[in-house]
C-alpha cells in the first residue's frame, strides 16, 4: 500500500491552517458539561448545543453525552436540543471556562428538527453516508415474528442489502458480511446472529443509540471495509427504577434499570430468551417417542454506571449470548431381568455464542479535553459434543464421546481523547491495542468398551489439533472537525494500523477526508474519501450464518483487505420536516478472500489458506433517501441503483474472469411509513422490493476424464453466478395498541410479515430433470427451484412498561 505524499501533505496543511487561523480570534472561553434526561439521568448522545445569536453554530454531545464549545467572552445564550425533548435556553455572562450540566425534559409534542451543524451523522453532519438510527422506529417497524431488530432495520436503508430473506446478514455497498464492524459499546462482536441469522444479538430495549456508517468513515474507526454499526447501550436510570417486559411469539424480553445510589450509581439489566415450550408438544409428536430435541437462545446484558465526581465516570458492562441445540435419543428396554435389558443414550449438544466484558473510564482533564479509556475482553466460541453410550445388562458397556471446538478471543485496551482548542476545531485522537487469539478447530474422540468386567477398548484420538494463531493489532488515529465559517466544514483524519501475525508484520496508513459545503436555502453538497484495512476474515460460503463459520487472521500469504471508498452527495433540508439526499459512490477493494471453486466448505478448515484465493472487487451506485421526520405520519423512501462484481486473477475462482457478486441486486426500493392516530393507536408498514441477486446453475452436463483413467460426467457451468433470480417483494404491516395502566403502559402489537404471501426465495437450487422424448432422443431440463420459508406470518406480542 502506498499513500501518495501529495495527499498526506494536503491533509496536514488543512489541519495546520485551520488551527492557526482559528487561533487569531479574541479572548474566548470554553463552556462544557453533560446533557442528560431529567427523568432518568441518562446521558443524551448527539444532543445539539447551539450558540452565537442569529448566526448559530452548533456542536453535539459525544457518545457519553459530554459537550464543549468555545465562545467569546460576554453575554452568552446557549440552546440545548434533542429530538423528543423540550429545548432549553440558558443565558449568562461568560468570563471564564464554565461547566454547565443541562437536563432536558421529554416532550409530548413533536418539535421541529433542529439545525445542528456538528453532528456525527445525518444530513447536517460533515460525515456523509452516516445515519443515526432511530430506536423508536426500529421498535415500531413490523418484522418477522414481531421481533424488532436493529440489523434488519438497517437492511431497509439505501446501499444496504440483506442476505437470505429473513436473516440478519447485511451487505453494504457490495461488501460481504464479514466486512461490517458491529460494535457493542465500542467492542466488536464477531457473531451477531442467533438461529442461523434469523435474529441478531441486540435487544432493542437495552439500546440507547445506533450510528451507522457505510462510507466516509471517521478516522477513529478501523478494522473493517464496508460499514460501521456503533451500538450504544443504556447506562441506567439514575432517578427511578423502570422496566419493560415483553412476550412475543418466539421470545420474551425483560429490561429493568434504576439507581443503586441516586444520581451516582445506576444499573441496567436486559434479558431475552426463546421459549420453546410452546412448540415442545409438536416437536415430540414429530420425533420418536423417546427422542427429545430443544433449541433455545438467550441474550443477557448488564451494565453498571458510577459517577465519582463531575470529572470521572466509570462504566462496567457484560454481555453474554448463547444458542444451543440439544437432541437426546434414549432407549431403555429394561424388563427388570438382569442380563436381558439394554439401554442406550445418544446425546448431541451444539452451542455457539459471544461473551463481552468491558470497563470504561471517562475523565475530563479540562473544559477542552475529554478522555475515554476502555479495557475489554471479547470471546466467541462454538462447540459440538456427542455422547453415545450403550449397555447390555451388566455384561457390556460402551462409551463414545466426540468433542469439537473453535473460537476467537480478544483482549483490548483503548484510549480516546477529544480536544476542542477553539470554536473551529474539534480534534479526536487516540490509540488501541488488541491481542487476538484465533482458536481453529480442535476435535477429539474417546472410545471405551468394557465387556465382562474387562476393558476391551480405551482410546483417545485427537482428530484435529488446530494450532492457535495469535495476532497483535495496534492502531492510532487523529481526526479534526474543521469549520470555516458557517458554510464549509472538513473532517480530515488518519488511521494507522500495524498487525503482526504468523511471523509477518503488516502496516497500513489509512487517510480519511470528508467535506461539506452549505449552499444556503437548505441545500448542501458533500464529498468524501476513505481508505480502510481489514485484518481478519470470516470463512463462510453459505447464505445462512452457520456456527461453523470461522474467523481467521491474515497470514504471511493472505494479505489484509484494503478498501478505497469515493463518494459524493447532494442534500436538501429546506422543507420543514423533510430531508432529501442523493449520493453516489464508487468502492474498490483488493485482497478479498473467497473459497476457490470446488473447495469444500462443509469440512474442516485445516489449511484453509490453501483453499482460498485473493481477488479484487468493485462496486458503484446511486442512492436516494427521502425522510419525513415531523408530524403524525413519518417515514422514509429509500432507493438504490447499484452494481457489484469481483475477479480473482489467479484463476482459482471463475477461471480468473469478472463475475457478478452474489448479492448484486440492481434495484432496491423500500417504503417505510409510521402513522400515529392517537396516543393509543399507531400503525406501521414497510414495503420492500428488490431485483434478484445471482446464483450459479449448470447449463448442461459434460464428460470428464479422471486422473485414474476413467470417464465420468458432471454439471457444466459457463461462469459463476450466471443466473439472475427474479425480483423479491413483500409488505409488512403492524399495529400497536397502547393503554395507560395504573403502574405503567401496556402495548399490544399485531403484525403481519409478508401480508400478501409473496413466495420469495429463501433457498435456491437447480435440479436436472430428464425427459424422454420419442423414446430415442432424451432431452434434459434444468429447473431452478426455490424454497420459501417465510410466507404470510402473523404475530402478536404483549409489552408492559413500568
Amino acid at each position, binding site marked *: 500500500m502506498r499513500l501518495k505524499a501529495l495527499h498526506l501533505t494536503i491533509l496536514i496543511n488543512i489541519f495546520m491552517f485551520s488551527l492557526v487561523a482559528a487561533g487569531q480570534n479574541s479572548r474566548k472561553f470554553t463552556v462544557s458539561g453533560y446533557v442528560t434526561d431529567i427523568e432518568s439521568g441518562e446521558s443524551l448522545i448527539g444532543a445539539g448545543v447551539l450558540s452565537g445569536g442569529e448566526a448559530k453554530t452548533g456542536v453535539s454531545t459525544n457518545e457519553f453525552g459530554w459537550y464543549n464549545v468555545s465562545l467569546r467572552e460576554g453575554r452568552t445564550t446557549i440552546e440545548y436540543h434533542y429530538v423528543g425533548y423540550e429545548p432549553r435556553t440558558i443565558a449568562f455572562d461568560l468570563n471564564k471556562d464554565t461547566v454547565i450540566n443541562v437536563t432536558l425534559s421529554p416532550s409530548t409534542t413533536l418539535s421541529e428538527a433542529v439545525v445542528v451543524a456538528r453532528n456525527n451523522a445525518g444530513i447536517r453532519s460533515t460525515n456523509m453516508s452516516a445515519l443515526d438510527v432511530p430506536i423508536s422506529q426500529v421498535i415500531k417497524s413490523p418484522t418477522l415474528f414481531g421481533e424488532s431488530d436493529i440489523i434488519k432495520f438497517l437492511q431497509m436503508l439505501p446501499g444496504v442489502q440483506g442476505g437470505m430473506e429473513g436473516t440478519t446478514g447485511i451487505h453494504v455497498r457490495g461488501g460481504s458480511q464479514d466486512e461490517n464492524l458491529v460494535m457493542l459499546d465500542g467492542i466488536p462482536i464477531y457473531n451477531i446472529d442467533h438461529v442461523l441469522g434469523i435474529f441478531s444479538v441486540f435487544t432493542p430495549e437495552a439500546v440507547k443509540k445506533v450510528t451507522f456508517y457505510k462510507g466516509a468513515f471517521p478516522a477513529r474507526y478501523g478494522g473493517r471495509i464496508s460499514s460501521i454499526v456503533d451500538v450504544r447501550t443504556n447506562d441506567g436510570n439514575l432517578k427511578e427504577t423502570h422496566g419493560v417486559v415483553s412476550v412475543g411469539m418466539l421470545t420474551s424480553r425483560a429490561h429493568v434499570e434504576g439507581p443503586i445510589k441516586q444520581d451516582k450509581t445506576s444499573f441496567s439489566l436486559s434479558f431475552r430468551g426463546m421459549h420453546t415450550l410452546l412448540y415442545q408438544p409438536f416437536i415430540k409428536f414429530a420425533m420418536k417417542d423417546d427422542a427429545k430435541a430443544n433449541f433455545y437462545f438467550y441474550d443477557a446484558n448488564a451494565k453498571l454506571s458510577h459517577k465519582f465526581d463531575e470529572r470521572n465516570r466509570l462504566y462496567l458492562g457484560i454481555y453474554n449470548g448463547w444458542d444451543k441445540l440439544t437432541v437426546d435419543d434414549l432407549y431403555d428396554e429394561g424388563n427388570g431381568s438382569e442380563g436381558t435389558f439394554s439401554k442406550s443414550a445418544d446425546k448431541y449438544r451444539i452451542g455457539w455464542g459471544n461473551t463481552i466484558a468491558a470497563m470504561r473510564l471517562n475523565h475530563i482533564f479540562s473544559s477542552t479535553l475529554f478522555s475515554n479509556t476502555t479495557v475489554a475482553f471479547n470471546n466467541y466460541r462454538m462447540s459440538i459434543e456427542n455422547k453415545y453410550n450403550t449397555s447390555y445388562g451388566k455384561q457390556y458397556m460402551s462409551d463414545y464421546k466426540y468433542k469439537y471446538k473453535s473460537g476467537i478471543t480478544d483482549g483490548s485496551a483503548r484510549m480516546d481523547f477529544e480536544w476542542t482548542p477553539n470554536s473551529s476545531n474539534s480534534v479526536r485522537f487516540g490509540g488501541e491495542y488488541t491481542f487476538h487469539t484465533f482458536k481453529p478447530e480442535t476435535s477429539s474422540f474417546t472410545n471405551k468398551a468394557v465387556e465382562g468386567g474387562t476393558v476391551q477398548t480405551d482410546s483417545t484420538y485427537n482428530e484435529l489439533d488446530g494450532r492457535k494463531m495469535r495476532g497483535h493489532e495496534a492502531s492510532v488515529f487523529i481526526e479534526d472537525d474543521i469549520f470555516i465559517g458557517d458554510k464549509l466544514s472538513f473532517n480530515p483524519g488518519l488511521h494507522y494500523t500495524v498487525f503482526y501475525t504468523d511471523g509477518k508484520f503488516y502496516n497500513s496508513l489509512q487517510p480519511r477526508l470528508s467535506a461539506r459545503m452549505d449552499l444556503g436555502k437548505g441545500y448542501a453538497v458533500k464529498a468524501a474519501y476513505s481508505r480502510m484495512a481489514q485484518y481478519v476474515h470470516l470463512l463462510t460460503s453459505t447464505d445462512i450464518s452457520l456456527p461453523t463459520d470461522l474467523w481467521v487472521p491474515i497470514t504471511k500469504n493472505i494479505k489484509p483487505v484494503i478498501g478505497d471508498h469515493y463518494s459524493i452527495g447532494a442534500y436538501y433540508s429546506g422543507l420543514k420536516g423533510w430531508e432529501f439526499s442523493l449520493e453516489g459512490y464508487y468502492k474498490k477493494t483488493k485482497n478479498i478472500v473467497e473459497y476457490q471453486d470446488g473447495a*469444500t466448505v*462443509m469440512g474442516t478448515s485445516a489449511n484453509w489458506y490453501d483453499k482460498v484465493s485473493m481477488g479484487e472487487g468493485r462496486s458503484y451506485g446511486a442512492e436516494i433517501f427521502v425522510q419525513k421526520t415531523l408530524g403524525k405520519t413519518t417515514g422514509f423512501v429509500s432507493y438504490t441503483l447499484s452494481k457489484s462484481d469481483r475477479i480473482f486473477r489467479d484463476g482459482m475462482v471463475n477461471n480468473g474472469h469478472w463475475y457478478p457478486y452474489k448479492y448484486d441486486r440492481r434495484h432496491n426500493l423500500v417504503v417505510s411509513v409510521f402513522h400515529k392516530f392517537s396516543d393509543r393507536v399507531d400503525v406501521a408498514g414497510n414495503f420492500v422490493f428488490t431485483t434478484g441477486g445471482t446464483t450459479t446453475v449448470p447449463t448442461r452436463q*459434460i464428460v470428464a476424464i479422471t486422473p485414474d483413467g476413467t470417464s465420468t460426467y458432471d454439471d457444466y457451468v459457463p461462469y459463476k453466478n450466471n443466473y439472475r433470480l427474479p425480483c423479491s417483494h413483500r409488505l409488512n404491516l403492524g399495529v400497536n395498541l397502547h393503554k395507560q395502566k395504573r403502574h405503567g403502559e401496556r402495548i399490544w402489537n399485531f403484525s403481519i410479515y409478508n401480508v400478501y404471501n409473496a413466495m420469495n426465495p429463501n433457498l435456491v437450487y437447480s435440479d436436472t430433470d430428464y425427459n424422454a422424448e420419442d423414446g430415442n432422443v432424451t432431452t434434459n431440463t*434444468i429447473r431452478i427451484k426455490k424454497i*420459501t420459508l417465510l*410466507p404470510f406470518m402473523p404475530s402478536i406480542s404483549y409489552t408492559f412498561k413500568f
Partner: protein
Amino acid sequence: MRKLMNILSSAVILTALGSCENTIDTIKVSGEDEIMMNALMNVNDDVHIVYLSHGQGDDFRPYTTKGELQCYVNGQLAATAKAKSFYDLYFCKAYVFNADFKAGDKVKLTIEEGLSAEVTVPQSPEILDVDTSYFENSSNIHSSVIFLRTRLQDVPHEENYYSFNVNAEVYKGWNLIDTTRNRRVTLFTDNEPLLKEYSSGNDDDKTFFDDYVKNKYHLFTDKSFADNSYVLNVGIYPYDCLWGYYYYKENYTHGYDKGGASVSVIVSSISPETYRYIKAIESSDFWHFEPVIFPQNVSGGLGFVSVANSAVWKIRFPDRMIPKDFYGY
C-alpha cells in the same frame, strides 16, 4: 388462555408448514449436440490418449471424428492419432498417438470439426533423493508402512502445482507380474501436512463437519517451500501394493521363485488449470451448495486437455523368494 395460545400457535405452525417449494424457471438445454475432447497426458507416457465424446443432456456417446486428430508441437505436426478401441472408455472414443514432449513445448490438438486445444508443457520438478525406511506393525502386519521420504526441489521463480503418486511393481525374474499403474495406491500421509487426509476411522465415526474430500489425487502447491527443496514424508502399505513380494509363508505348497519388486515415486508438475480441474473432479464426489466449475480449455467445443511433466525416482528392492504361482503365473 391455553385454548387461545393453542389456536395461535397452531396458526403460526400451519403457516410455516405452508412454505413450499416452487419452480422459478425452466431451462431446456436440449439444443446442441456438442463434441467434447479430453486428454490428461504426461510427458512420460508410452502413448498419449485423447478421448472424444459427444452428446446433449445426459446422453453421451463416443465420437468418431470425420477427419484426423492431429498433434502439433511448437507449430509442427508431430503425430496423427489413430482410433484404438482397446483404450475406449465409457462415453469416450480413444485416439492414440506417439510424440515426444519436453518442458516448454506448446502442444496443440485439433480435429477437423474445428475443435482445438493448446497447452504448454510445464517444467518438471527434481527429485533429489528418496530415503526409505520400514515400520513393521507386529499386531497388524497389514498396517506396516514403508516410508518414502522424498526430497523434492521446486521449480524456481514461478507458482507450481504438483501431484504425488507411487507406482509399485512385482517381478518374477524379468517378467512383470503385478503393477499398480492402473490403480491408485493407498498412501500413508498422516505425517505429511501437505497431503494429510482428514478422515478418522471408518465412515460411521464421521460427524457432519468431517472433510469428505481426502485429496485423493494427492495434489499440493509450492506455497510453503517456493524455490526451495522440501521433504515429502509419505508411506505406502507394502502388504497392499507389494503383496506378492512381501507375502512369505513358510511351506507354501506350490514352492517359490526368485522375484523382485520396485517402487517408483512420481511427482508431476501440472498447470494451474489442471490443478483446478482435478480438484473439481474430487469435489464432485459430494454435495455442494452450488455446482462446481470445471475448467474448460477446448475452443470450438467442450473439454479439457493437459500435459503433465513428471520426475520419477525408482527404487529397486532386493530379489527374494516369492511364492510360485501366487499370481497364477
